[in-house]
Protein backbone atom coordinates (compact mmCIF):
# COMPACT_ATOMS: atom_id res chain seq x y z
CA UNK A 1 0.00 0.00 0.00
CA UNK A 2 1.01 3.60 -0.37
CA UNK A 3 1.08 4.04 3.35
CA UNK A 4 3.56 1.30 4.03
CA UNK A 5 5.89 2.53 1.32
CA UNK A 6 5.75 5.95 2.90
CA UNK A 7 6.70 4.51 6.22
CA UNK A 8 9.46 2.39 4.73
CA UNK A 9 12.61 4.55 5.06
CA UNK A 10 12.14 4.97 8.79
CA UNK A 11 14.84 5.77 11.23
CA UNK A 12 17.90 5.23 9.07
CA UNK A 13 17.05 8.30 7.11
CA UNK A 14 15.72 10.16 10.07
CA UNK A 15 19.04 10.21 11.81
CA UNK A 16 20.75 12.19 9.13
CA UNK A 17 17.83 14.59 9.05
CA UNK A 18 18.27 15.48 12.66
CA UNK A 19 21.59 17.06 11.91
CA UNK A 20 20.19 19.31 9.23
CA UNK A 21 18.18 22.43 9.65
CA UNK A 22 14.53 21.76 10.43
CA UNK A 23 13.48 22.17 6.84
CA UNK A 24 11.34 19.26 5.76
CA UNK A 25 12.04 19.54 2.05
CA UNK A 26 15.76 18.95 1.99
CA UNK A 27 15.47 16.24 4.60
CA UNK A 28 14.36 13.78 1.97
CA UNK A 29 17.79 14.13 0.37
CA UNK A 30 19.54 12.37 3.15
CA UNK A 31 17.23 9.39 3.27
CA UNK A 32 19.71 6.74 2.18
CA UNK A 33 22.63 8.05 4.22
CA UNK A 34 23.18 6.56 7.59
CA UNK A 35 25.22 8.60 9.99
CA UNK A 36 25.60 8.96 13.68
CA UNK A 37 23.46 11.57 15.32
CA UNK A 38 25.35 13.67 17.75
CA UNK A 39 23.49 13.96 21.00
CA UNK A 40 24.11 17.46 22.37
CA UNK A 41 26.02 17.64 25.65
CA UNK A 42 23.10 18.82 27.74
CA UNK A 43 20.99 15.87 26.64
CA UNK A 44 23.90 13.47 27.03
CA UNK A 45 24.42 14.72 30.58
CA UNK A 46 20.80 14.00 31.46
CA UNK A 47 21.41 10.38 30.44
CA UNK A 48 24.83 10.10 32.07
CA UNK A 49 23.55 11.46 35.37
CA UNK A 50 21.33 8.36 35.59
CA UNK A 51 24.14 5.85 35.17
CA UNK A 52 25.63 3.74 37.92
CA UNK A 53 28.93 5.07 39.18
CA UNK A 54 31.05 2.36 37.60
CA UNK A 55 29.66 3.00 34.09
CA UNK A 56 30.04 6.72 34.54
CA UNK A 57 33.69 6.33 35.48
CA UNK A 58 34.33 4.00 32.52
CA UNK A 59 32.81 6.50 30.10
CA UNK A 60 35.37 9.07 31.18
CA UNK A 61 37.41 7.34 28.47
CA UNK A 62 34.92 8.39 25.76
CA UNK A 63 36.32 11.87 25.19
CA UNK A 64 38.21 14.67 26.86
CA UNK A 65 35.10 16.59 27.80
CA UNK A 66 33.53 13.46 29.30
CA UNK A 67 36.68 12.78 31.31
CA UNK A 68 36.06 16.07 33.09
CA UNK A 69 32.43 15.36 33.95
CA UNK A 70 33.02 15.32 37.67
CA UNK A 71 34.52 18.79 37.44
CA UNK A 72 31.58 20.15 35.51
CA UNK A 73 29.27 21.99 37.95
CA UNK A 74 26.35 21.69 35.54
CA UNK A 75 26.71 17.95 35.36
CA UNK A 76 27.34 17.56 39.08
CA UNK A 77 24.11 19.43 39.69
CA UNK A 78 22.21 17.04 37.45
CA UNK A 79 23.84 14.07 39.12
CA UNK A 80 22.86 15.38 42.53
CA UNK A 81 19.32 16.16 41.45
CA UNK A 82 18.94 12.67 40.15
CA UNK A 83 20.29 11.12 43.33
CA UNK A 84 17.98 13.23 45.45
CA UNK A 85 14.92 12.82 43.25
CA UNK A 86 14.71 9.27 44.56
CA UNK A 87 14.02 7.89 41.14
CA UNK A 88 17.12 5.80 40.85
CA UNK A 89 16.81 2.41 39.27
CA UNK A 90 17.13 -0.55 41.51
CA UNK A 91 20.52 -1.60 40.20
CA UNK A 92 22.20 1.30 42.04
CA UNK A 93 25.69 1.00 43.38
CA UNK A 94 26.08 -1.36 46.27
CA UNK A 95 28.87 -0.89 48.72
CA UNK A 96 30.08 -3.34 51.29
CA UNK A 97 31.87 -2.23 54.38
CA UNK A 98 33.55 -4.91 56.41
CA UNK A 99 34.94 -4.13 59.79
CA UNK A 100 36.25 -6.43 62.45
CA UNK A 101 37.76 -4.86 65.50
CA UNK A 102 38.61 -7.84 67.67
CA UNK A 103 41.74 -6.80 69.41
CA UNK A 104 44.58 -7.21 68.57
CA UNK A 105 43.53 -7.99 65.01
CA UNK A 106 41.67 -5.34 63.12
CA UNK A 107 40.29 -5.63 59.68
CA UNK A 108 38.58 -2.94 57.68
CA UNK A 109 37.74 -3.12 54.00
CA UNK A 110 35.49 -1.17 51.73
CA UNK A 111 34.19 -2.60 48.47
CA UNK A 112 32.01 -1.64 45.56
CA UNK A 113 29.96 -4.65 44.51
CA UNK A 114 29.08 -4.96 40.86
CA UNK A 115 27.30 -7.31 38.52
CA UNK A 116 25.67 -9.05 41.46
CA UNK A 117 28.73 -11.20 41.98
CA UNK A 118 30.89 -11.03 45.03
CA UNK A 119 33.92 -11.98 42.89
CA UNK A 120 33.49 -8.72 40.98
CA UNK A 121 33.98 -6.60 44.07
CA UNK A 122 36.30 -3.65 43.81
CA UNK A 123 38.32 -2.60 46.79
CA UNK A 124 38.48 1.08 47.66
CA UNK A 125 41.13 2.75 49.75
CA UNK A 126 39.71 4.49 52.76
CA UNK A 127 40.18 8.26 52.93
CA UNK A 128 43.61 9.21 54.37
CA UNK A 129 42.32 10.30 57.82
CA UNK A 130 40.80 6.85 58.30
CA UNK A 131 43.87 5.01 57.04
CA UNK A 132 46.04 6.19 59.92
CA UNK A 133 43.78 4.47 62.37
CA UNK A 134 41.13 2.21 60.96
CA UNK A 135 39.79 0.79 64.21
CA UNK A 136 36.19 1.22 65.28
CA UNK A 137 35.18 2.75 61.99
CA UNK A 138 31.56 2.73 60.96
CA UNK A 139 29.29 4.34 58.38
CA UNK A 140 26.90 6.84 59.91
CA UNK A 141 23.24 6.04 59.30
CA UNK A 142 24.38 3.18 57.02
CA UNK A 143 23.79 5.46 54.11
CA UNK A 144 25.36 7.01 51.05
CA UNK A 145 23.88 10.39 50.16
CA UNK A 146 24.64 11.88 46.74
CA UNK A 147 27.79 9.79 46.62
CA UNK A 148 28.93 10.80 50.10
CA UNK A 149 29.49 8.54 53.06
CA UNK A 150 30.09 9.81 56.52
CA UNK A 151 32.67 7.65 58.26
CA UNK A 152 32.54 7.81 62.03
CA UNK A 153 35.09 6.75 64.56
CA UNK A 154 34.95 6.59 68.33
CA UNK A 155 38.17 6.46 70.23
CA UNK A 156 38.96 6.52 73.87
CA UNK A 157 42.12 7.92 75.36
CA UNK A 158 42.17 7.31 79.06
CA UNK A 159 39.00 8.84 80.34
CA UNK A 160 38.42 11.02 77.32
CA UNK A 161 36.17 9.89 74.52
CA UNK A 162 36.63 11.45 71.15
CA UNK A 163 34.52 11.22 68.07
CA UNK A 164 35.68 11.90 64.56
CA UNK A 165 33.66 12.06 61.37
CA UNK A 166 34.97 12.17 57.83
CA UNK A 167 32.82 12.95 54.81
CA UNK A 168 33.99 10.83 51.93
CA UNK A 169 33.10 10.32 48.28
CA UNK A 170 34.73 7.05 47.12
CA UNK A 171 34.15 7.90 43.44
CA UNK A 172 36.03 11.16 43.46
CA UNK A 173 38.25 10.41 46.50
CA UNK A 174 37.14 13.73 47.97
CA UNK A 175 37.08 13.81 51.73
CA UNK A 176 36.64 16.29 54.51
CA UNK A 177 37.17 15.98 58.23
CA UNK A 178 34.23 17.32 60.20
CA UNK A 179 35.51 19.74 62.85
CA UNK A 180 34.94 18.92 66.51
CA UNK A 181 32.50 20.97 68.53
CA UNK A 182 33.37 23.22 71.49
CA UNK A 183 31.02 21.23 73.72
CA UNK A 184 33.02 18.04 73.47
CA UNK A 185 35.74 18.75 76.01
CA UNK A 186 34.87 21.79 78.10
CA UNK A 187 34.09 22.32 80.85
CA UNK A 188 36.62 19.96 82.42
CA UNK A 189 34.43 18.52 85.16
CA UNK A 190 32.66 16.29 82.67
CA UNK A 191 33.62 13.89 79.91
CA UNK A 192 31.45 13.27 76.87
CA UNK A 193 29.97 10.01 75.82
CA UNK A 194 28.78 9.83 72.22
CA UNK A 195 25.53 7.95 72.36
CA UNK A 196 24.40 8.38 68.84
CA UNK A 197 25.49 9.92 65.55
CA UNK A 198 23.41 10.27 62.42
CA UNK A 199 24.09 11.59 58.94
CA UNK A 200 21.44 13.03 56.64
CA UNK A 201 20.52 15.50 53.97
CA UNK A 202 18.46 18.67 54.26
CA UNK A 203 16.51 18.87 51.00
CA UNK A 204 15.23 22.35 51.73
CA UNK A 205 18.63 23.98 52.14
CA UNK A 206 20.71 21.57 50.08
CA UNK A 207 22.83 20.91 53.13
CA UNK A 208 24.48 17.84 54.63
CA UNK A 209 23.97 17.46 58.34
CA UNK A 210 25.15 15.36 61.22
CA UNK A 211 23.18 14.92 64.38
CA UNK A 212 24.51 13.48 67.61
CA UNK A 213 23.40 12.84 71.13
CA UNK A 214 26.06 13.41 73.77
CA UNK A 215 25.69 12.47 77.38
CA UNK A 216 28.22 13.42 80.04
CA UNK A 217 29.72 11.74 83.02
CA UNK A 218 31.59 13.47 85.85
CA UNK A 219 35.34 13.67 85.91
CA UNK A 220 36.25 14.11 89.55
CA UNK A 221 40.00 14.53 89.51
CA UNK A 222 39.80 17.51 87.19
CA UNK A 223 37.31 19.19 89.45
CA UNK A 224 37.48 22.92 89.67
CA UNK A 225 36.11 25.29 92.22
CA UNK A 226 32.80 25.36 90.50
CA UNK A 227 29.82 25.00 92.80
CA UNK A 228 27.87 21.82 92.28
CA UNK A 229 24.69 23.61 91.27
CA UNK A 230 26.45 25.24 88.33
CA UNK A 231 27.53 21.96 86.87
CA UNK A 232 25.45 20.43 84.15
CA UNK A 233 25.46 16.84 83.05
CA UNK A 234 22.38 17.25 80.93
CA UNK A 235 22.67 15.40 77.63
CA UNK A 236 22.94 17.45 74.45
CA UNK A 237 21.55 17.08 71.01
CA UNK A 238 23.97 18.72 68.60
CA UNK A 239 23.67 19.33 64.90
CA UNK A 240 26.37 19.99 62.34
CA UNK A 241 25.73 21.75 59.05
CA UNK A 242 28.19 21.43 56.18
CA UNK A 243 27.12 24.81 54.82
CA UNK A 244 28.03 26.61 58.03
CA UNK A 245 30.78 24.07 58.81
CA UNK A 246 29.95 24.24 62.50
CA UNK A 247 28.04 22.51 65.28
CA UNK A 248 25.21 24.03 67.25
CA UNK A 249 23.11 22.80 70.15
CA UNK A 250 19.49 21.99 69.40
CA UNK A 251 17.04 23.41 71.88
CA UNK A 252 14.88 20.36 72.11
CA UNK A 253 13.37 19.05 75.31
CA UNK A 254 14.87 15.60 75.70
CA UNK A 255 13.39 14.55 79.01
CA UNK A 256 11.63 11.75 77.24
CA UNK A 257 14.58 10.24 75.49
CA UNK A 258 16.80 9.13 78.27
CA UNK A 259 19.34 6.78 76.95
CA UNK A 260 20.55 5.07 73.84
CA UNK A 261 23.32 2.95 75.19
CA UNK A 262 21.52 -0.35 75.03
CA UNK A 263 20.72 -0.01 71.36
CA UNK A 264 23.66 -1.41 69.42
CA UNK A 265 24.89 -0.43 66.93
CA UNK A 266 24.34 3.21 67.67
CA UNK A 267 24.44 4.40 64.10
CA UNK A 268 20.76 4.24 63.20
CA UNK A 269 19.38 4.56 59.71
CA UNK A 270 18.58 7.38 57.31
CA UNK A 271 15.61 7.45 54.96
CA UNK A 272 13.94 10.25 52.97
CA UNK A 273 15.29 13.18 54.93
CA UNK A 274 14.85 11.61 58.35
CA UNK A 275 17.38 9.98 60.70
CA UNK A 276 16.00 7.20 62.89
CA UNK A 277 17.52 5.52 65.91
CA UNK A 278 16.50 3.51 68.92
CA UNK A 279 16.13 5.04 72.34
CA UNK A 280 14.40 4.56 75.63
CA UNK A 281 11.75 6.75 77.14
CA UNK A 282 12.30 6.15 80.81
CA UNK A 283 15.06 6.11 83.35
CA UNK A 284 15.04 2.35 83.66
CA UNK A 285 15.65 1.81 79.96
CA UNK A 286 12.65 -0.41 79.64
CA UNK A 287 10.26 1.39 77.38
CA UNK A 288 11.79 1.36 73.93
CA UNK A 289 11.04 3.97 71.35
CA UNK A 290 12.00 4.85 67.84
CA UNK A 291 13.42 8.35 67.68
CA UNK A 292 13.13 10.09 64.33
CA UNK A 293 14.75 13.38 63.46
CA UNK A 294 13.67 15.43 60.46
CA UNK A 295 16.91 16.86 59.04
CA UNK A 296 15.19 19.77 57.26
CA UNK A 297 12.75 20.99 59.90
CA UNK A 298 14.96 19.87 62.79
CA UNK A 299 12.19 18.32 64.81
CA UNK A 300 12.08 15.07 66.78
CA UNK A 301 9.36 12.46 66.66
CA UNK A 302 8.96 9.51 68.94
CA UNK A 303 7.23 6.25 68.20
CA UNK A 304 6.75 3.83 71.11
CA UNK A 305 7.92 0.29 70.49
CA UNK A 306 5.59 -2.35 71.82
CA UNK A 307 7.35 -5.16 73.53
CA UNK A 308 6.41 -8.55 72.30
CA UNK A 309 6.49 -10.48 75.49
CA UNK A 310 6.06 -8.93 78.91
CA UNK A 311 7.48 -11.96 80.68
CA UNK A 312 10.75 -11.66 78.84
CA UNK A 313 13.62 -10.11 80.73
CA UNK A 314 14.36 -6.92 78.85
CA UNK A 315 18.04 -7.14 79.51
CA UNK A 316 18.22 -9.98 77.06
CA UNK A 317 16.45 -8.25 74.24
CA UNK A 318 18.61 -6.97 71.45
CA UNK A 319 16.94 -4.59 69.06
CA UNK A 320 18.07 -3.82 65.54
CA UNK A 321 16.83 -1.10 63.31
CA UNK A 322 16.92 -1.84 59.59
CA UNK A 323 15.46 -0.40 56.42
CA UNK A 324 13.61 -2.87 54.23
Amino acid sequence: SRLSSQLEPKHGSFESKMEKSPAASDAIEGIKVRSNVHIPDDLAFSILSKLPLKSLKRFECVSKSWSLLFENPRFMNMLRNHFTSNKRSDYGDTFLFLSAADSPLTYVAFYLLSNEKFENRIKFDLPPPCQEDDTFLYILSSVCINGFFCMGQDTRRGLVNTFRAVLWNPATSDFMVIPSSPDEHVPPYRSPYFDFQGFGYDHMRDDYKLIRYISFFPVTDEDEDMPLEDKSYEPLLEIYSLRSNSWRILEIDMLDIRDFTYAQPRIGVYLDGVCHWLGTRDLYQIEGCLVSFDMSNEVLFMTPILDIDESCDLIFIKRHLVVL
Partner: protein
Amino acid sequence: MAEEVSSQMNSLSISETNPSSSATISLVSGDDIVFKVEPTIAKEMETVQSFIDETDGKITTIPLPNISSHDLPYVIEYCEKSIAGKITKEFEAEFVKKLNNEEVKELFLAANYLNIKKLLDFLSQVIADRIANKSVEYVRRYFGIENDFTPEEEAKLREELAWTFTGVDPDDEDEN
Protein backbone atom coordinates in the same frame (compact mmCIF):
# COMPACT_ATOMS: atom_id res chain seq x y z
CA MET B 1 -0.11 14.14 -1.25
CA ALA B 2 -0.18 13.84 2.46
CA GLU B 3 -1.51 10.61 3.78
CA GLU B 4 -3.79 10.86 6.77
CA VAL B 5 -3.30 8.55 9.61
CA SER B 6 -5.52 9.25 12.53
CA SER B 7 -4.01 8.39 15.82
CA GLN B 8 -5.22 5.22 17.40
CA MET B 9 -6.36 6.96 20.48
CA ASN B 10 -9.68 6.32 22.02
CA SER B 11 -10.98 9.87 21.97
CA LEU B 12 -14.20 9.05 23.80
CA SER B 13 -13.10 10.01 27.28
CA ILE B 14 -11.44 13.17 26.06
CA SER B 15 -14.39 14.40 24.00
CA GLU B 16 -16.61 14.05 27.04
CA THR B 17 -14.56 16.49 29.02
CA ASN B 18 -13.74 18.70 26.09
CA PRO B 19 -16.76 19.80 24.02
CA SER B 20 -14.66 21.57 21.41
CA SER B 21 -12.82 18.41 20.51
CA SER B 22 -13.79 18.84 16.88
CA ALA B 23 -10.93 21.31 16.48
CA THR B 24 -8.31 18.63 16.01
CA ILE B 25 -4.66 19.45 15.48
CA SER B 26 -2.80 18.06 12.51
CA LEU B 27 0.78 17.10 13.14
CA VAL B 28 2.81 16.64 9.98
CA SER B 29 5.84 14.41 10.28
CA GLY B 30 9.12 15.04 8.49
CA ASP B 31 8.12 12.52 5.82
CA ASP B 32 4.79 14.30 5.26
CA ILE B 33 2.41 12.03 7.07
CA VAL B 34 -0.45 13.80 8.82
CA PHE B 35 -1.49 12.71 12.29
CA LYS B 36 -4.73 14.15 13.65
CA VAL B 37 -4.75 14.53 17.41
CA GLU B 38 -6.96 16.09 20.04
CA PRO B 39 -5.89 19.53 21.30
CA THR B 40 -5.26 18.00 24.72
CA ILE B 41 -2.54 15.85 23.18
CA ALA B 42 -0.91 18.88 21.62
CA LYS B 43 -0.86 20.49 25.06
CA GLU B 44 1.49 17.74 26.24
CA MET B 45 3.97 18.79 23.56
CA GLU B 46 5.24 22.17 24.67
CA THR B 47 6.78 22.97 21.31
CA VAL B 48 3.49 22.35 19.52
CA GLN B 49 1.43 24.19 22.12
CA SER B 50 3.55 27.32 21.99
CA PHE B 51 3.23 27.25 18.18
CA ILE B 52 -0.57 27.15 18.55
CA ASP B 53 -0.53 29.88 21.17
CA GLU B 54 1.66 32.15 19.06
CA THR B 55 -0.83 31.99 16.21
CA ASP B 56 -3.83 32.42 18.53
CA GLY B 57 -5.03 28.95 17.62
CA LYS B 58 -5.68 29.93 14.01
CA ILE B 59 -3.19 27.47 12.65
CA THR B 60 -3.95 23.86 13.46
CA THR B 61 -1.59 22.16 11.03
CA ILE B 62 1.85 21.93 12.48
CA PRO B 63 4.87 20.71 10.54
CA LEU B 64 7.30 18.66 12.61
CA PRO B 65 10.21 18.23 10.21
CA ASN B 66 12.40 16.66 12.89
CA ILE B 67 10.00 13.86 13.72
CA SER B 68 9.53 10.83 11.49
CA SER B 69 6.22 9.07 10.95
CA HIS B 70 7.81 6.07 12.60
CA ASP B 71 8.33 7.91 15.87
CA LEU B 72 5.31 10.18 16.03
CA PRO B 73 2.75 7.43 16.86
CA TYR B 74 4.89 6.42 19.85
CA VAL B 75 5.04 10.01 21.06
CA ILE B 76 1.27 10.38 20.65
CA GLU B 77 0.62 7.11 22.46
CA TYR B 78 2.74 8.22 25.39
CA CYS B 79 0.99 11.60 25.57
CA GLU B 80 -2.42 9.93 25.53
CA LYS B 81 -1.47 7.71 28.43
CA SER B 82 -0.02 10.68 30.23
CA ILE B 83 -3.27 12.69 29.97
CA ALA B 84 -5.26 9.68 31.09
CA GLY B 85 -2.93 9.43 34.07
CA LYS B 86 -2.11 5.87 33.06
CA ILE B 87 1.66 5.99 32.92
CA THR B 88 2.58 2.95 34.93
CA LYS B 89 5.82 1.02 35.20
CA GLU B 90 4.12 -1.80 33.30
CA PHE B 91 3.07 0.50 30.48
CA GLU B 92 6.53 2.02 30.24
CA ALA B 93 8.22 -1.38 30.19
CA GLU B 94 5.88 -2.54 27.41
CA PHE B 95 6.32 0.76 25.56
CA VAL B 96 10.08 0.40 25.07
CA LYS B 97 10.21 -3.39 24.87
CA LYS B 98 9.90 -3.49 21.11
CA LEU B 99 12.25 -0.57 20.47
CA ASN B 100 15.92 -1.11 19.73
CA ASN B 101 18.55 1.25 21.07
CA GLU B 102 18.63 3.41 17.93
CA GLU B 103 14.87 3.81 18.02
CA VAL B 104 14.95 4.76 21.68
CA LYS B 105 17.54 7.39 20.83
CA GLU B 106 15.33 8.81 18.04
CA LEU B 107 12.35 8.97 20.36
CA PHE B 108 14.51 10.62 22.98
CA LEU B 109 15.56 13.31 20.49
CA ALA B 110 11.94 13.66 19.35
CA ALA B 111 10.81 14.13 22.95
CA ASN B 112 13.49 16.77 23.33
CA TYR B 113 12.42 18.56 20.16
CA LEU B 114 8.77 18.50 21.21
CA ASN B 115 9.73 19.39 24.77
CA ILE B 116 7.81 16.61 26.52
CA LYS B 117 9.55 16.54 29.85
CA LYS B 118 8.07 13.35 31.21
CA LEU B 119 8.90 11.33 28.13
CA LEU B 120 12.37 12.82 27.97
CA ASP B 121 13.01 11.94 31.57
CA PHE B 122 11.74 8.42 31.12
CA LEU B 123 13.74 7.76 27.94
CA SER B 124 16.95 9.12 29.39
CA GLN B 125 16.62 6.49 32.13
CA VAL B 126 15.92 3.80 29.51
CA ILE B 127 19.06 4.79 27.59
CA ALA B 128 21.10 4.89 30.80
CA ASP B 129 19.93 1.37 31.66
CA ARG B 130 20.73 0.11 28.18
CA ILE B 131 24.22 1.58 27.91
CA ALA B 132 25.29 0.93 31.51
CA ASN B 133 27.21 -2.21 30.55
CA LYS B 134 28.28 -1.08 27.10
CA SER B 135 31.82 -0.49 25.92
CA VAL B 136 33.42 2.92 25.54
CA GLU B 137 33.47 2.39 21.75
CA TYR B 138 29.75 1.63 21.66
CA VAL B 139 28.95 4.76 23.64
CA ARG B 140 31.09 6.90 21.32
CA ARG B 141 29.15 5.61 18.32
CA TYR B 142 25.82 5.90 20.09
CA PHE B 143 26.34 9.50 21.13
CA GLY B 144 28.20 10.42 17.94
CA ILE B 145 31.30 11.52 19.80
CA GLU B 146 34.79 11.82 18.35
CA ASN B 147 37.58 10.29 20.35
CA ASP B 148 39.86 13.28 20.94
CA PHE B 149 42.41 11.48 23.12
CA THR B 150 45.83 10.55 21.83
CA PRO B 151 46.38 6.76 22.02
CA GLU B 152 48.78 7.36 24.94
CA GLU B 153 46.31 9.50 26.86
CA GLU B 154 43.55 6.98 26.40
CA ALA B 155 45.73 4.04 27.42
CA LYS B 156 46.77 5.87 30.56
CA LEU B 157 43.19 6.73 31.52
CA ARG B 158 42.04 3.18 30.87
CA GLU B 159 44.75 1.90 33.13
CA GLU B 160 43.71 4.27 35.92
CA LEU B 161 40.10 3.23 35.51
CA ALA B 162 40.83 -0.47 35.01
CA TRP B 163 38.35 -1.35 37.77
CA THR B 164 35.50 -0.03 35.66
CA PHE B 165 36.23 -2.30 32.71
CA THR B 166 35.07 -5.56 34.25
CA GLY B 167 31.74 -7.03 33.23
CA VAL B 168 31.39 -5.00 30.02
CA ASP B 169 29.08 -6.55 27.43
CA PRO B 170 30.67 -7.37 24.07
CA ASP B 171 29.54 -4.99 21.33
CA ASP B 172 26.61 -6.39 19.42
CA GLU B 173 26.95 -6.09 15.66
CA ASP B 174 23.24 -6.47 14.94
CA GLU B 175 22.27 -4.04 17.65
CA ASN B 176 19.98 -2.19 15.30
